[in-house]
């Protein structure tokens, strides 16, 4: 990636030329939801960073539903800038790329990124994501209280794998709301691992991983309210999103091999933002056991030969045993799951199978693992489910020699 943006359009009604603090809101057809985060971000900047020059930027994907107008018409004491990719260029990563180029141009000290479709955001989020940057941290990842079934890709793949690989415990590595210091902006704009998957939904794990591998101090900040999406989210994201996120993760493994090969176990990060009072309970999140079970079972019809071609016999045979389990007793052991993901990583690197097909073939296995997690944590509180995930992460860390042997 070079410093050229994918910018086709800019509207800067207040002619802002310099800003210390930038809040960026990537969007694509978010006319119904963008007003709320825009207003909350502006209020947060006034309340908590009133002594700084600030701007709120909507980095859009040429929305045709009036997102731009909704954003620019949101009442705010903080100036606003609207940016957009060219028509046809859609992707959260491309939006963030435009944002970062603009932040550099504005000589910003810090950039805070917020999702465009969240309801729970308050001005406190701006404080909690921004203050650690003022305190010297280079990257701030969010900590939310999420429902135990929300964030399945993060829980089952991205968090355990990132933690075991790079040795830093960042619980929400694809949380969507985060902050970074200006010195990271240059890294993001010039890093050679940028590609089209990053330009779309791979961007969050890409930015988190680059921050970890830069060795800069990372903070996780509790943002106070549970993450509530205005749009319904499936427990398993759509095919392209899954591929972009997991594909980026596996591409980064190739790029940062020298880094993660040295890492053993993992270390925590600093934590910010506790003691803010009562924690709200996240919204419930229903899952359909039967449907997940069927997706897992049907995966054998489609991918049996592919799995057999690169998974070790004992792992493949174990999958066969899991398939025979009735739904009531369904269980996908974490030790097997860790080895499967490590096997996929090596297969992806070595291009044993065409990469997109390989990523798609992971979906039914991931669904099976998610079903197993849901069943095991069914009667658990959020805290107990978190401990369960922490234990799974330890299994990934303990199994890392297996990855090295397969790589």
């Amino acid at each position: 990636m070079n410093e050229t943006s994918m910018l086709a359009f800019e509207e800067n009604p207040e002619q802002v030329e310099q800003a210390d603090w930038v809040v960026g809101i990537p969007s694509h057809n978010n006319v119904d939801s963008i007003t709320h985060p825009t207003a909350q971000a502006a209020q947060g900047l006034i309340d908590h960073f009133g002594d700084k020059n600030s701007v709120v930027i909507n980095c859009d994907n040429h929305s045709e539903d009036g997102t731009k107008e909704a954003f620019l018409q949101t009442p705010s004491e903080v100036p606003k800038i609207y940016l957009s990719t060219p028509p046809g260029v859609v992707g959260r990563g491309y939006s963030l790329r435009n944002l970062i180029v603009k932040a550099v141009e504005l000589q910003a000290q810090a950039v805070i990124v917020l999702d465009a479709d969240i309801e729970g955001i308050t001005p406190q989020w701006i404080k909690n994501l921004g203050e650690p940057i003022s305190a010297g941290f280079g990257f701030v990842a969010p900590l939310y209280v999420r429902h135990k079934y929300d964030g399945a890709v993060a829980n089952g793949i991205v968090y355990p794998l990132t933690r075991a690989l790079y040795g830093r415990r960042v619980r929400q590595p694809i949380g969507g709301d985060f902050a970074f210091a200006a010195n990271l902006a240059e890294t993001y704009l010039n890093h050679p691992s940028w590609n089209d998957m990053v330009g779309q939904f791979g961007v969050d794990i890409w930015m988190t991983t680059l921050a970890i591998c830069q060795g800069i101090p990372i903070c996780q900040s509790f943002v106070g309210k549970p993450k509530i999406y205005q749009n319904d989210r499936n427990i398993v994201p759509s095919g392209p999103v899954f591929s972009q996120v997991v594909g980026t993760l596996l591409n980064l493994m190739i790029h940062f091999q020298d880094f993660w090969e040295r890492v053993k176990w993992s270390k925590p990060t600093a934590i910010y933002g506790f003691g803010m009072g009562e924690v709200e309970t996240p919204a419930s999140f229903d899952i359909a056991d039967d449907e997940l079970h069927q997706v897992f079972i049907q995966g054998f019809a489609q991918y049996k030969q592919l799995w057999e071609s690169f998974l070790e016999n004992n792992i493949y045979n174990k999958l066969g045993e899991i398939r025979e389990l009735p739904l009531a007793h369904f269980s996908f052991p974490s030790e097997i799951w860790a080895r499967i993901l490590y096997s996929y990583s090596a297969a992806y690197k070595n291009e044993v199978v065409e990469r997109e097909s390989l990523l798609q073939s992971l979906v039914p296995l991931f669904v099976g693992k998610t079903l197993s997690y849901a069943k095991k944590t069914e009667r658990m509180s959020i805290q107990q489910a978190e401990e369960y995930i922490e234990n799974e992460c330890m299994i990934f860390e303990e199994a890392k020699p297996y990855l090295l042997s397969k790589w």
Partner: protein
Amino acid sequence: MAKILVVDDEEHIRLLYSEELKEEGYDVITAEGGHGLLERIEQDKPDLVVLDIKMVDYDGLDLLQDIRNKFYDLPVILSTAYDTFKEDMKSIAADFYVVKSFDLTELKKKIQMALEARDAS
């Protein structure tokens, strides 16, 4: 030889941990509370801290947060008599936790893991 700072307000725990960890080859220093702890860490430069969560005058989780903010990569192992502390999310800033016991096998294992993680990075 790695230097370990044991912070606990119970003298018998400090003695137990000191003796057993010295037998493992560690250099052990102790502190009986949180007063002046950050300065002590600055001065003695331990490689790892074993921190009691519930001390009479100090909340170990608050101390953990102070340590993590000032000494970002210093490994800290929480030592506790109860596991209810996990309900406080501040505890995730610790490298590991152990439940207090006269059998220090788990503590020794976690110390080794934390030091390996630090050395590998």
